[in-house]
């Protein structure tokens, strides 16, 4: 159909349109007639608030689930709510702007991972992953330690130093173990080589 025909048809359609006032008035009259014929159906009071009640329930459930996930050491890697816990922690991390606040946060994270590690050790699973998380937090802590000012509370400073000392000892122990393993590997390699020579 060409454009002119389309336009002419559209224009005639507009000319045939009803008045809006008539549309509104007739609707009111008909709905009034409907109520007169079939009566007005009264809904129970809570139906009017169904939307608000449902929204409220969702908010409360989300809030309590989130709070439980965040605070409970039983929520560990592999459980359903663990991603919720980690997401809340990520958001919390973003809110820490000063070095002191960051240090306190990483110390708290280490405590939380230790608590999870204890739960997982009891269940004998996924301990290694939690240990990796602890080390990550310690690394972040060591970076932040340099920025901590002298006026920081002695409590936090002492805890930071203690945690980093533990880390140093653990790394040294691991380094010593690795060195020992290397030495043994070299020794056994030498012995095997001399046997081959013979």
């Amino acid at each position, binding site marked *: *159909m*060409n454009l*002119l*025909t389309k336009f*002419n*048809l*559209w*224009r*005639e*359609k507009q000319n*045939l*349109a*009803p*008045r809006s006032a*008539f*549309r509104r008035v*007739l*609707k009111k*009259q*008909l*709905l009034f*007639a*409907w*109520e007169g*014929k*079939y009566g007005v*159906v009264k809904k129970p009071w809570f139906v009017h608030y169904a939307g608000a009640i449902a929204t409220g329930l969702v908010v409360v459930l989300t809030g309590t689930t989130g709070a439980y996930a965040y605070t409970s050491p039983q929520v560990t890697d592999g459980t359903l709510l663990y991603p919720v816990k980690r997401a809340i922690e990520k958001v919390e991390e973003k809110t820490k702007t000063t070095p002191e606040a960051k240090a306190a946060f990483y110390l708290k994270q280490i405590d939380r991972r230790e608590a999870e590690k204890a739960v997982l050790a009891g269940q004998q699973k996924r301990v290694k992953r939690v240990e990796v998380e602890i080390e990550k937090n310690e690394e972040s802590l060591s970076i932040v330690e340099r920025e901590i000012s002298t006026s920081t509370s002695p409590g936090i400073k002492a805890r930071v130093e203690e945690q980093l000392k533990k880390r140093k000892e653990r790394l040294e122990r691991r380094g010593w173990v690795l060195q020992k393993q290397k030495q043994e590997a070299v020794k056994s390699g030498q012995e095997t080589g001399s046997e081959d020579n013979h």
Partner: protein
Amino acid sequence: MASRKDFEKFYNEHFDRIYRFVFFRCRDRELAEDLVSEIFLKALNHFADFDEARGKAAWLMTIAKNHLANYWRDRKATVSLTAVDETGEEEEAEFLGLKQALQAWQKAKDTSLVYELLGKIEPIEAEIVTLHYLFGYSYLEIAEMRGVSEGAIKVAAHRALKKLRKHL
């Protein structure tokens, strides 16, 4: 059981189209408003009896056509509702009403080609074009009204538009 909300939705969906149809046939706004009010009141009284298989548009159109036919009969219209065309055959009242309306609109708006062109094509095709383009019914609804397939309506509409283009 149909509810007030169902009827309200039904009214919102069909009011404009039925008004256009009635106004097109009677060419008088005040008369069209009275007739449309009466048509919707009839629909309201029989809303519970409505046949789901038929489609709401077709059902309401049947009420409207019957109501218009009753109105013209009661008014003792000067033109009889059956007439003989050039070939000597009787035309259906339905299509004669459409033809008269097209001619009357053409006289009233002689700058518009639309009504003249619609008068030149087959009555069935003119009805499909007016129902779809002037009143706003879909091809499916028109098919339900006429009791044929949607495909047949689309083919007829396509043929009608081709003829309209030829006459332009």
